[in-house]
Structures are given as structure tokens and as C-alpha cells.
């Protein structure tokens, strides 16, 4: 090992008696803390979280919890080890002083750090009209409290549920409602469910799944207003096509907003798209200079990925939170030569209408899609997305055991269309077709992957002067 003899001992000092603060006490924050302790960090560790709960798992909230198979307040994450942390729960971080290395809390306290990890994640995008959003019976679904409230509302047998937005969460909610025997209408601005994340070819399959399960699916429409009764309970929604949907539960499922407001004015490169960081999870400041002591992980991070043209990816994925937290924690406690890049291949899953949907890679980068195995009409297939002659992503419906193979194809930049035959190839897999993603300039519920930033490969920068 190099290190102790040639360096100034700062790292050893940090590991022995340094102060590490983690803002965000959810999946990424917890796993990072565990990795730090695993790596021998013996100093003080402070976990700051705005929710009053210890870290819990969110995916069950739109599935098991809504079906009544699990209880919202029994989803705490299992620990891999003890982390011996000072927990500050139920208190949001409200500010950051980078020069003094201090985090300000909502209760006026200040916490000093030697290394800071920001894992503040995202929150549900609220209904744009606050008054309408306040109506009883209107929900979003992100937190444990949201899940508990929505579960109770569904258990009360509402006459109809309206889900606004047919992304993954909205579709899973609609699926759970149907399984409970509830009437449900889904209103989606795009041409089909999941269209932002998987394109219209797959979106059409998702639309058929909704309709087969007797979801009243309305696409190409927006909800323009929610209407309450005199008691302040929601009773109906008005749609852009002039129709009205009567519903006593409305779930607003319009994607997420990044929790970066608390960093405004701090000098950190944080904004509505997240916090920009390098591949080693170190945050950029507003000047585009990488910091040495502030790291980012999870949904709030956007980092360049070598496999995808160094585009800055924001990934709202469970697996990304775990992997990026691990990398950030490792790098926070390593000399620069020992640091690792975060090179996790994006992957996610969704379970809806009894079908297991899984994906690897970055589907929205794909311009073409080829059904390599199985058939869309049978809801059991594997499809690969092509981008500039290479495999860039894959999706499976009830066919996930093939996914690791396609992940290898993505990692090795294999050619698209694949030059080999595949098991269970059907006539529809003879030729790639356009993947048909919506125009990114048209707002939709928001894909789960956001491509942003510029690529060092094409060196394009646009300077927009302030007015």
C-alpha cells in the first residue's frame, strides 16, 4: 500500500476521529453509513432526516402496502451492521455553509462536518393547485405516511379512484386498486402508460394491460381541475377533453422533485435537476469545480456515466441508491488513487397487473427497439433498445432471467440489432422498429431516467446570458 508514509496522515486522522454528516436518512444514507463503518471509520457519524422515522423501504408502499399484505409502518430497512450514529430525525436540513463546513437544521441547530454526504432524494411532485391539493381524498405517494393514508382511503371502498399520471407508480397504484376490486380511472397526458420511461411500443402493451384489467384509461388528456364538495372532500376531476370524472380518491402521480432547495445560495451545484457530481460522487460547486469534502448519492445525484457517453444521469432507482451510496462511502474514506467510479448499470423493476417488468440500461436513449424474444401480445418478452448501432438498454415482461445477458451486451457495447439469433425469436423480432419516445420538450409525467448535461464527447456548451 502507498499512503501513510507519503501522505500527511489526514485520511488516517479522519478515519480515527473525523466527523461525517449524512443528510438524508433513507436507503442511500443508511447503506453509506454501514459501508463507512465497515471500512473502519471510527469517528462521529450524524444522520439527519426530515421524516421522523428510521430508514424504511419505499417500493412496498405502492404494492404490498396498498394490497393490504404489509403495513406501511412495518417497512423499516434491515441493517447490515450497527452504525453507531447520532440520529437527528424529524428535522430537515435547511442550509449549508461550505466555507465553515456546517449544516444548518430546521430547529436552529448547526452540525459541523469534515466530510458531508448528501442523500436527500426526491419528493412527490404535488398537485400544482395547492387549494385543490388540500382537498380531503387527494393523495400523493412517496412516504410511509402517504402510503398509510392511501391504504386507509382504499380500504374504505371509495366509489372510484382517479390516478393522475401513468408512470410506474401511477400504474402500480391502478393495479392495486383493481386487485382490491375498486373502480379506477387513469388520466395520462402522454399517448400511453410508461411512455416516458419505455417508449410507445412498450407503452402500448402497458395500455392493453390496463384495459384488460378494466382500468378506465384516458390518454392524451390532462386533469385541469379538481372539485371539492362543501365539506372539503374531493368529488370530481375535470379533464382537458371536457369530460368529468367523479371520484372520491384522487392520487397525484406526476413524478418527483429533487430535494435541493435547502442548498440554494450555498454555492453547491444544486438545482431542480439534482446535484451534479463527478463519477466518484464528489459534488460540483456552481463554478463547475469539484469539491473535496462533499459527496452525493441516490436519487438527488446526477453523475456522468462512461457507458452512456458521459451523460449526467439522474436515476430514481432503488439499486442506484444502494450502489452509489457504497461508492460514495468508499471514496469519502480513500486517497484519490484508491477511489472508484460509480459505474452501475441502471436497472429497475415494477410489478403491475400480475406482470413483472424489469429493465437494464437507459431505454430513453434508444431510438429503435427489437423484440428479441417472445411476443408483445403474450406479455412475455424481451426487447432491446438500440442507439447508434449499439445495444443501449433492454426490458423484459415476465422474462427477467434473460436480463443479465442483455446487461452484458450493454456493458460490452454490443452491436444493434444483435447479429445473432435468440431463443424464442418470433416474426415480430425480425426487424427493429422506432422505439417512439415522446418529444422530450413536451412535458409528461417524467421518465424515471433523466438525461441532462452536456457530453465531453461532443463539447457543446451553450451560454445563456441573464436578462
Amino acid at each position: 500500500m502507498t499512503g501513510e508514509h507519503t501522505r500527511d496522515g489526514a485520511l488516517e486522522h479522519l478515519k480515527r476521529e473525523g466527523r461525517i454528516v449524512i443528510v438524508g436518512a433513507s436507503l442511500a444514507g443508511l447503506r453509506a453509513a454501514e459501508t463507512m463503518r465497515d471500512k473502519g471509520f471510527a469517528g462521529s457519524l450524524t444522520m439527519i432526516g426530515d421524516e421522523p422515522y428510521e430508514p424504511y423501504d419505499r417500493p412496498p408502499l405502492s404494492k404490498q402496502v396498498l394490497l393490504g399484505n404489509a403495513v406501511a409502518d412495518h417497512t423499516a430497512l434491515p441493517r447490515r451492521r450497527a452504525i453507531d450514529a447520532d440520529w437527528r430525525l424529524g428535522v430537515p436540513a435547511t442550509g449549508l455553509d461550505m466555507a465553515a463546513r456546517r449544516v444548518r437544521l430546521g430547529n436552529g441547530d448547526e452540525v459541523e462536518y469534515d466530510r458531508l454526504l448528501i442523500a436527500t432524494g426526491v419528493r412527490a411532485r404535488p398537485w400544482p393547485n395547492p387549494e385543490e391539493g388540500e382537498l380531503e381524498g387527494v393523495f400523493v405517494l412517496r412516504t410511509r405516511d402517504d402510503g398509510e393514508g392511501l391504504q386507509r382511503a382504499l380500504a374504505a371502498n371509495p366509489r372510484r379512484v382517479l390516478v393522475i399520471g401513468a408512470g410506474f407508480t401511477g400504474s402500480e397504484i391502478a393495479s392495486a386498486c383493481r386487485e382490491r376490486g375498486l373502480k379506477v380511472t387513469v388520466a395520462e397526458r402522454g399517448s400511453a402508460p410508461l411512455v416516458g420511461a419505455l417508449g410507445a411500443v412498450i407503452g402500448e402493451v402497458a395500455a392493453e394491460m390496463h384495459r384488460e384489467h378494466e382500468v378506465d384509461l384516458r390518454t392524451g388528456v390532462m386533469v385541469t381541475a379538481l372539485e371539492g364538495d362543501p365539506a372539503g372532500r374531493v368529488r370530481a376531476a375535470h379533464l382537458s377533453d371536457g369530460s368529468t370524472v367523479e371520484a372520491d380518491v384522487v392520487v397525484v402521480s406526476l413524478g418527483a422533485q429533487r430535494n435541493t432547495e435547502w442548498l440554494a445560495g450555498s454555492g453547491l451545484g444544486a438545482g431542480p435537476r439534482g446535484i451534479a457530481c463527478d463519477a466518484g460522487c464528489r459534488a460540483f460547486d456552481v463554478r463547475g469545480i469539484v469539491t473535496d469534502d462533499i459527496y452525493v448519492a441516490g436519487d438527488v445525484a446526477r453523475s456522468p456515466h462512461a457507458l452512456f457517453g458521459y451523460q449526467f444521469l439522474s436515476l430514481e432507482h432503488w439499486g442506484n441508491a444502494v450502489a452509489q451510496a457504497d461508492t460514495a462511502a468508499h471514496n469519502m474514506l480513500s486517497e484519490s488513487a484508491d477511489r472508484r467510479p460509480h459505474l452501475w448499470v441502471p436497472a429497475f423493476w415494477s410489478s403491475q397487473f400480475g406482470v413483472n417488468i424489469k429493465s437494464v440500461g437507459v431505454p430513453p436513449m434508444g431510438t429503435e427497439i427489437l423484440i428479441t424474444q417472445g411476443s408483445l401480445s403474450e406479455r412475455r418478452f424481451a426487447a432491446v433498445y438500440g442507439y447508434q448501432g449499439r445495444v443501449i438498454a433492454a426490458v423484459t415482461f415476465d422474462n427477467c432471467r434473460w436480463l443479465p445477458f442483455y446487461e452484458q451486451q450493454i456493458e460490452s457495447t454490443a452491436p444493434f440489432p444483435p447479429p445473432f439469433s435468440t431463443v424464442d425469436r418470433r416474426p415480430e423480432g425480425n426487424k427493429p422498429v422506432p422505439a417512439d419516445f415522446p418529444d422530450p420538450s413536451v412535458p409528461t409525467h417524467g421518465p424515471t431516467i433523466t438525461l441532462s448535461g452536456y457530453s465531453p464527447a461532443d463539447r457543446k456548451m451553450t451560454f445563456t446570458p441573464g436578462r
Partner: protein
Amino acid sequence: MRLVVDLNRCQGYAQCAFLAPDVFAMHGDESLLYNPEAAAEQREDVARAVAACPVGAILLELTDEDMADIGSQDAVAGAGAGSGGSR
């Protein structure tokens, strides 16, 4: 007893659903639903499910009480113990 399944890693082999049917259930052909906080009396079944998972996707945390009964086994078994990098 807290547990979480890394569903990126899960490939729907359903061994857990056979061995601990009160905690794990298949939903359709390939999706897995599970109770993230299983009752203490499920401990042995869940431990078998963790051991039988072909892809090591189940992360289990046992309480002190569970530990007292089990003896020398690790408190934590399964996915992510050590690496944390789910693939």
C-alpha cells in the same frame, strides 16, 4: 425480523415462496411480494428461504431475540452483506 429483497437480483425462482409461504408470495408468474417485517415465529422458514435463494437476493436482519436462539449464525445474511452493490 426485518427483511428486504433486492428485486433487481431476484429472478423469480420462487424458492422463498415454497419455503416461507406466509412471508413470500409470487404475484403472477414472476413478481415477488413479501412482508418486510415477518413475525418471529416465521424465523426458521425465512432462514431457509434466505439460504435457498439461488441468487442471494434476500437480506435479513434478526433481532437480539432471534439471535439468542440461532447461536453462531451471522446476524445478517444474504444479499449485499459486504458488497452492497446490487447487480
